[in-house]
């Protein structure tokens, strides 16, 4: 009985335990780790990924996967830069998340219309989105050195980077949606047992589409932060972020089978990955081992979560 509960505890809080262990170890090994500056930098650098992982949590809880978010990020990057340059910097910042929302909704429509697994559908739409980003940017970098554009990614509010505030606010909104609203209930029900959800009168197609819309919006939001930070729109932006986001969600302990999970877990997953990376920098460790280590940590987390499941 005790063993069982111990397993459950491990499964539930594996990501926090690993973060605590890593923070302890890095503080011990290096003086420059546990500083306000370093920690804030980690948060700031990973805010775009954390925003995408938060929304990906909804998609995965509802039983789906979105492999197109990196491409949506790329579209957001070139669209915001192009509009900022040719129309208005503020409009560029404002519009990109809604472009993402539209692309995410399109994902949902495609998945429901073709009745294919989202995994397949979003591989295809991702390629299309990526192609659109290349066409819009004409394959070139779009440099936007405008104060009115870069304030978002570089500026601070109350000593903390804007990006971190946006990330916290976005994660809180999604947490509220998931846990306190009828929509959140539907998301859990669709992922937990789609047939039971349908027989309960839930329009599961709409619920799934909504989760993809959130994922698209988040990718757009993340992309304006990143684009404004580097003052550069490019179709190559965000490459690999879809897998990082999914890895972070799973690493956090959200069920890959759907029906269970939480946004804070995915943030935990993002920062666990970030700490590993940061540790390599701070300790001047051989970066050749970074991917190897990250892979081992993900494997360990999966092992723990499986061991807790009876």
């Amino acid at each position, binding site marked *: 009985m005790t063993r069982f509960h111990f397993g459950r505890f491990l499964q539930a809080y594996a990501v926090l335990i690993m973060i605590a262990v890593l923070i302890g170890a890095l503080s011990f090994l290096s003086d420059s780790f546990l500083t306000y500056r370093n920690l804030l930098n980690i948060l700031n650098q990973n805010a775009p990924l954390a925003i995408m992982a938060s929304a990906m949590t909804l998609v995965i809880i509802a039983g789906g996967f979105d492999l197109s978010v990196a491409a949506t990020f790329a579209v957001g990057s070139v669209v915001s830069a192009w509009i900022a340059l040719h129309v208005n910097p503020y409009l560029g910042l404002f519009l990109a998340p809604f472009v993402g929302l539209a692309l995410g909704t399109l994902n949902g429509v495609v998945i429901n219309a073709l009745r294919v697994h989202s995994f397949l559908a979003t591989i295809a739409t991702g390629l299309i989105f990526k192609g659109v980003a290349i066409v819009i940017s004409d394959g070139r970098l779009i440099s936007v050195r405008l104060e009115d554009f870069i304030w978002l990614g570089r500026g601070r509010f109350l000593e903390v980077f804007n990006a971190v505030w946006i990330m916290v606010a976005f994660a809180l909104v999604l947490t509220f949606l998931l846990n306190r609203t009828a929509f959140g209930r539907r998301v859990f029900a669709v992922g937990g047992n789609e047939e039971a959800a349908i027989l309960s*009168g839930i329009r599961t197609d709409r619920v799934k589409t909504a989760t993809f819309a959130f994922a698209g919006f988040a990718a757009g939001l993340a992309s304006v932060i990143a684009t404004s930070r580097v003052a550069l729109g490019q179709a190559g932006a965000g490459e690999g972020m879809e897998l990082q986001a999914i890895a972070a969600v799973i690493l956090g302990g959200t069920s890959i089978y759907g029906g*269970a999970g939480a946004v804070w877990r995915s943030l935990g997953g993002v920062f666990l990955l970030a700490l590993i990376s940061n540790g390599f920098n701070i300790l001047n460790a051989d970066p050749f081992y970074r991917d190897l280590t990250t892979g081992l940590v993900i494997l360990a987390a999966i092992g723990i979560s499986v061991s807790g499941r009876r």
Partner: protein
Amino acid sequence: MTGGAALTASGIGVSFSGVAVLRDVSLDIAPGEIHGLIGENGAGKSTLGKVLGGYYAASTGTLEVFGARAQAWDPLLALASGVAIMHQELQLVPELTVAENVFLGLEEQRFGVLRRTEVRRLEELMAASGFRLDPNAIVSRLPIADQQKIEILRALAREARIIVMDEPTSSLSRDEVSQLHVAMRKLRDEGRSIIYVSHFLNDILEVADRITVLRDGEHVKTVPAAGETRSSLVAAMLGGGKSETPFPPKVRPVRAEPILEVMNLVSPGGANGATLTVGRGEIVGLTGLVGSGRSEIARAIVGADPAAGGEVRVRGAPYRKRSIRRSAALGMVMSPEDRRKQGLVMTMRTSSNMTLPHLARFAPDGIMRRRLERSRATRLIEHFRVRPPDPNGDVSTCSGGNQQKILIGKWLMENPDIVILDEPSRGVDVGARERIHFAIAELAAGGTGVLLISSEIEEVLGLAHRAYLADGGRIVEEVIPEESSEAELLALLFQHQSRRHEAAPA
């Protein structure tokens, strides 16, 4: 002690999550025998077949196969000992050829490379057994009767001496059934034993040498088929007046004005011209054999399946473009038959499961009223005496009976006017069953119209004011429970079924 029996089972008992499905069943199968295994729905005949084939472990009792004690019995060991099982749902790989399926797992290889000798080996096997099929045909394109032959060939390729066939004829035409019977006789004449699990009494009587009857998980009798008739078998399946739990007293509705009327309902799912009515305060039973379309009729009524024709009226007003949502808004709900697959979301807590169809009511502006949810769920939990009585409880760890109570409670939360209950007490313990039965009686006494779908005729007779018999997706008889016996209804159902099978195109 074995006396040359091919297989001897002694004192077999099986229980699933505390509910005994088989109790102390003993039987022996002779070599060169077709042994029929029959019983009502839930009598345990398929379970026994699966125990023999190693798919379920018996909690008590022993098995002996050709005189050797079967220990740590599982499908692989069973196969190695010469016992093969043909499942109700065929277990073939649809995209492979006949030959590849027959020799799946038995491929000859050299250094790990397939030698592709399956076709030649299959030719030999077919020549020896007399079954003819194209070895290179893709399985998914063959009719079911041929697919069954593949399963038989598969058993033969593994040198099975005993073959368990679980409801092999349920999706066959009359013609294909005779083909299968010819094949079975041939196997028997070669000295193999066949255990033939079926609810088609005529089929069993036609081909079996001996018949074992099960009832409520217990062995009733094993007799030579020659001396039996359909009515003698039905009598044995039903036994004499058991009634383990008393049913609540029936309260006649004062004047059962129709609240639900269904006319000639047709659906691609399986309703085929169903006509029925349910009155206010009335419990109307709906029963039928497996595959009679009971559930499909219900699904078409509430809009879980699209309908292709017919009419539904609720309180006299035509109800078109049906959906679960619209039905719920009209006060009509359906509790589905499979609580794990269709009913509950196992990853959600009890209260969230109960409020799932009523979210709009608990979140008028989108934000859940969690206190209201909790109190309404608690009320239902108390009403149904759900254990544990915790609205935050984990439904996946509840017993089947408590899950069923939660499922029914979920649908009663908004006090519907019409309730369709599909198998409300399947696989639950006696206490839960009794509680559910009283809840159904209370519901009707309060003026709700109840359509009670059950494969247990006894349950329908005990609870319903009126009852319909379904066959082939339509209503074939209407009966008054007080004037009918279980045996009569079962005999009627078998009659309709065999008549339909005879009429079916071969």
